[in-house]
Every structure is written in C-alpha cells, then in structure tokens.
C-alpha cells in the first residue's frame, strides 16, 4: 500500500474528537471488548476463540477479562456454532459467532439460509435472530483454496441477512458495534490481509458506523471507483496513479453490501459518468454484478462508458498464483483507462 493510500484510509472524514491509531484486528477486539462490557447479553464463541484468542488473535485476552461463560471455545462444527447463535438470539441474547475462516461457512450454510435468514419473516416478526457471524475472508495470505475465498456474494443474495465488510479500523469497530446493537443477523467479513496492514484513527469515545452507508475515500470527477474490503488499498493506489496522470477518480468504499448504498453510488456515477467496480470475489455472478446492473438501469443516459469490473477469477483460489489472482493497483488502473478512453 502506498503512503498516500494509507493516509486516505487512515483518517475517515467521519472521525472526530480525540483519537488513537490502531490496526483493523485491534479494532475488532476493542469492539467486542467494549460491547461485552456494555451489554450482558453479548457472548463470543467459536473454534479456538477462548484462551488461544482465535487463530488471528481477534479475541485475545477476552476470556481472561470477561470470563469463560462469555468468551468460549466450541466443538469443531460451524453448523453448531451458527445454530447455537440462532437459538441464543431467539432467547434474547446477542451472540457473536466466529467462523475461523470464511471458507468454512459451508457447513453452516443451511443454518444461515433456513434458520437465521428466515427467522423474522417466517415467524411473522415474532422470533428474531440478532446475531453476528464474524469471519476472516479474502486472499493475499498464501492460503490457497480454503483460506482465501470471498464468499460474500452468496450471502448478499440471501434475503434476511445483512452483510458487512470494513476496510479500515474505524469502520471495523463502528460497524461491528452497529451489528451488535442491531436487530438483524449480520455477516461480518473481515479482510484478513488488512488485519495488521490497515492502521488508522479511531475515536476514544464510543461511536458506531451505520450499516448501509458507503464511505467516500476520495473525491474526483472523472470516474467513480467502487470497492470494498481487502481491495481498498489497491483501489486507492490506482486512484493515486491516475491522479499522477491528471485523472481524478472518486473512490467509494461500500463497507456494507446488504443493504448497500445505492444512493451514494448513483449520485457519484451520475456526476462522473463512469464506474469501475473492484472486488476479489470470482467474477461470474458476484455481488458487483448487482451494482453494475443498478448503475446502468438508473443512469443509462448519463453513462459515458460501460460499467467495468475488476474481480477475482472464476476458479478455486490458487496457491502459488495468489498475487496474480488478486486485483492489483495496475490492473485496476488499466480498467479505469479503458473506461476513460471508451
């Protein structure tokens, strides 16, 4: 990540008051810690989240501080973890279920689909499942097939769950708090390659970031770059490279994928006339296809070029070709040039 990109991500214009600089994983830990303190209904559990603190140490120290009845290990079963969270939430608690890697949400798929997502609807609004599923996702850590996937598109398509993916410490902390204070099931994807790479300011005071609102990372008038999660530093690198060529890209970080901030997207693209959408999920039928569809549907007349995507490729995530798989700043910039020269 370039220095300028780092700076853009480090200080959100939303940040106010006294702040401290932390990294993304610390932001997650702090949000959990503070919500555990604030609300007795909150419990945190999953594989190895107890004394070990999780494989990425997101829950480090929390068992010692809050007790084993509030932060604990579970058997190795994602269905049991998510299912237990559903049952707890229905009985009035605020469970945070960790899935060790987003790649391992598969065994819990039916619990999310048939239980969490449909609970409110199927009960006529009487039973609700306000739970949070936290899980590290995305590539860039040499994790191969099963430690690199970006499954968010499955869940955006699954009505009844909210989907969130922050790319800065500020957003991670504020969105996780919103997720825990909200009334809906939330799938909270944490871009693992930014856990330590993304550093930034967070307020000392309690704050939240609303689910459903995008963040404007950079203003510009020539084209709109839209991304979320792990690709954001590369998106900002691309914007910076373009700026060096005199092109001003506006950069939006969606942060929430369901609901996503269509209003912010449309008002930016209405202004710039061009949109490049960046994600690392496999290209075909991914969530960005939805964003593209919505843009062309609403802004057909004001578009100066087709909406373009830069995404992952349609394959199981490869190991040695990790770097080639991921959208690079260059690849993103090239797509922008294509949109600009259209």
């Amino acid at each position, binding site marked *: 990540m370039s220095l300028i990109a780092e700076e853009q991500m480090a200080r959100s214009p939303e940040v106010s008051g006294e702040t401290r600089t932390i990294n993304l994983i610390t932001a997650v830990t702090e949000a959990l810690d503070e919500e555990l303190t604030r609300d007795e209904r909150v419990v945190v559990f999953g594989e190895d989240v107890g004394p070990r603190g999780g494989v990425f140490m997101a829950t480090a120290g929390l068992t010692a501080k809050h007790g084993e009845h509030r932060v604990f290990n579970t058997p190795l079963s994602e*269905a049991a973890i998510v*299912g237990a969270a*559903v049952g707890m939430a*229905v009985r009035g608690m605020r469970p945070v279920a960790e899935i060790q890697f987003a790649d391992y949400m598969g065994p819990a798929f039916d619990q999310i689909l048939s*239980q969490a997502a449909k609970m409110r609807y199927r*009960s006529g609004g009487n039973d609700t499942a306000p739970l949070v599923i936290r899980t590290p996702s995305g590539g860039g850590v040499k994790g191969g097939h099963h430690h690199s996937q970006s499954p968010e598109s499955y869940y955006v398509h699954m009505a009844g769950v909210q989907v969130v993916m922050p790319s800065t410490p500020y957003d991670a902390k504020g969105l996780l708090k919103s997720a825990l204070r909200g009334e809906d099931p939330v799938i909270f994807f944490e871009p693992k390659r930014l856990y330590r790479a993304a550093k930034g300011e967070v307020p000392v005071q309690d704050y939240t970031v609303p689910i459903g609102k995008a963040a404007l990372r950079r203003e510009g008038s020539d084209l709109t770059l839209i991304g979320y999660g792990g690709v954001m530093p590369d998106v900002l690198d691309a914007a910076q490279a373009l700026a060096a060529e005199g092109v001003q890209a506006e950069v939006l970080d969606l942060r929430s994928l369901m609901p996503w901030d269509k209003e912010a997207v449309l008002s930016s693209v209405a202004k710039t006339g061009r949109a490049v959408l960046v994600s690392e999920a496999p290209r075909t039928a991914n969530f960005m296809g939805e964003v593209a569809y919505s843009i062309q549907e609403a802004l057909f007349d004001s578009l100066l070029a087709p909406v373009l995507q830069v995404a992952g490729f349609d394959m199981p995530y490869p190991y040695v070709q990790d770097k080639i798989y991921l959208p690079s700043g260059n690849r993103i910039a090239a797509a922008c040039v294509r949109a600009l020269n259209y």
Partner: protein
Amino acid sequence: MKIQPFTAEPIRWVSEQGEPLQPLPERYTPDFLRGLYRDMFRAREFDRKLITLLRQGRTSFYAQAHGMEATQVGLARACRAGHDWWWLYYRDHPIMLTLGVPMLQLISQIMGTSTDVCKGRQMPHHFSAPSHNVVSISSSIASQVPPATGTAMAQKYLGTDEITICTFGDGATSEGDWHAGINMAAVKRAPVMFVCENNQWAISTGVADQTASETIHIKARAYGMPGYYVDGNDVVAVLEVMSAVAERVRSGEGPAIVEALTYRVGSHSNADADAEKHYRTREEVEEWTSRDPLDRIEKLLAHLGSPVTAEEKEALAQEVNAEVSAAIEEAAASGTPSWDVMFHDIYAEQPPHLAEQEAYVRAEQEVGA
C-alpha cells in the same frame, strides 16, 4: 421414580390390553387419565377434520399425526407450558394443542389467513406460537437441533430454570446438523431434552434404511449423555419418562435423548397418499393400528372401572368438531393477508431495495385493480 437409560426394550407402563404392568403413580386418577385421553382424542379429531378441509381444497398440505398422539400429548404434559421453550417439527400440532395453543392459531396457519401469526408466509404445518414459546418451525429437517442447543445455552447463561425441548423424526437423525447440535449440547451441558418421535418411516424410507444402529436412543452414547427408550403409544409411560427426564435436564445434569417408539399410521402427507402401494405392507399398518394409543388408554380406563362411554365419545367428538368448525370459519372470515405483508419482516427496518420492490408491486396492483 428413577427411570433407567439404555433399556433393551421400550419402557412401558400399560400393556396393550390396558393393564398396568407396574403400579400407576398416584396422579393417574381416572380423571387425570381422562384428561390425557381427551387431549389425544382432540388431536385425532383435529386431524380427521383437517383432512376433510384438505379434500375440500381449502388448504394445500396436511401432515397428520395419527398414531403418534400418546407421544405428543405425554411430552407436552411433561413440561411447563408457557415457561419451557420448544423447537418442534412439522408433525407436532398435537403438542401445541396440548400446550394450549388456540385452535384458531393452528388452523389460521394451515389456511394462511389473516389470523395467522406468521401472516400466511409459510406453508401449512410450519407453526409458530410466541405465546407458548414455540419457535417458528422450519422445513429443513434437523435444522432446529443446533438452535435448540443455543436456546438452552441461553437459558443456562441467563440463570433461568427453563428447559428447551427439541423434537424430530427418525429420519432427522441422519442429518449432519442433528449430530452437530446434540454434540454441542452435551459439551456445554445445555438444558435441552431431545425427543425422537420414531414413527419408523421417513416418507418411504424405513428406519432400517436410515441407520444401522438397533435403536435411536443408543446414539446418546456417542455424546456421553443418557438415552431413554419409551413405548410411544403408552401415554402413561411417555408422561412418566418425559417428566423424569425433563426434571433431570432442568436440574442441571445436562441434556438427554428420549426415543419414543411409535408409528405413522397415516400417509406422510397428502403428497404421499399411496404408502401401502409403494413401500410398506398393509399388514404392517394393521399391526400398528391394533396398537392404537387411544385404544390403550380407553382399555386402561375400563380396567380401572371408569370406561369411556359411547355417549361421552360422541359428545367429545361433537365438541372438537364444533371447535374446529368455529376456528375454520373465524379464520376464513379474516381473509387472506393483504399482498404487501410479503414485503415486511425481512429485516427489522425495510431497506430501500425492498421499499422499491414493494412500490413496484403496488403500482402493478393498482393498475390491475
């Protein structure tokens, strides 16, 4: 009275001839037994009437519990109504009736009318009764098991003296989620009672094609919890075993599995009318019909010198019929939920894209109107 886990034969209190095989506990006065009988009778009549409703095309799906009433009534009576929590499956309307869920509520769900608490959104038999802590039922077999564990973990965490009851069929025991949920419950010593209503068939698949274990309750050994085996057509045995196990679970000794051996006398659902033609013998059905749970308690009452008379039965049938008919009429009169409820309760607050979709249909409906 201490109930033994892992018995070779199902625990039984009353013989098929209606004779007590061991002294009946004190509470089993003729009056009390009559109450159980009435609950079972009511469930049976409910099924009979609702199948007529189905034949009239006034509902689209029906899953009868015929033959399983002793299991379901005994279980419902063993727990604290309005206090304990329930994760049921689709064939459990007799449990809900016995808990005191109003008939109108069940029938409204079956008919999908405006009086339905779940607003006509689910197909028949996917009940929900917030008033009685019955969590909304999902079709996905065994998917209720891990959540039931979670509810029990919450009950323990919150320091309540509630327990959770989780029911399922014999078929459900093959699903991965069944295992995952039960294993977790045992590790966490969650106060949950898992009840298998083993009616020996999962649609057309017999229990021997479902699992190679001799019984279902033996599976409790895999989780380090007790497994109990009860004659599910003997309402006294069911009530005694379930009560003992429920109180054991309530006392903090961890979860348990109870297998109630019974039989699905009717078809799986209306989509499976020809069971005897396709996959089971008429003899098998007749054999189990001869072990009818209502017959057994009638014989017991006769044996105790308090027989159920033909007039009593007739009056009871009329009472239930009137109750069902009134509920059907009341439900029908409430009408179908208006189209727009389909757009609500997906999230706590309606997000913009759903507001857009609702507006789109509204425009369409207005043109149509």
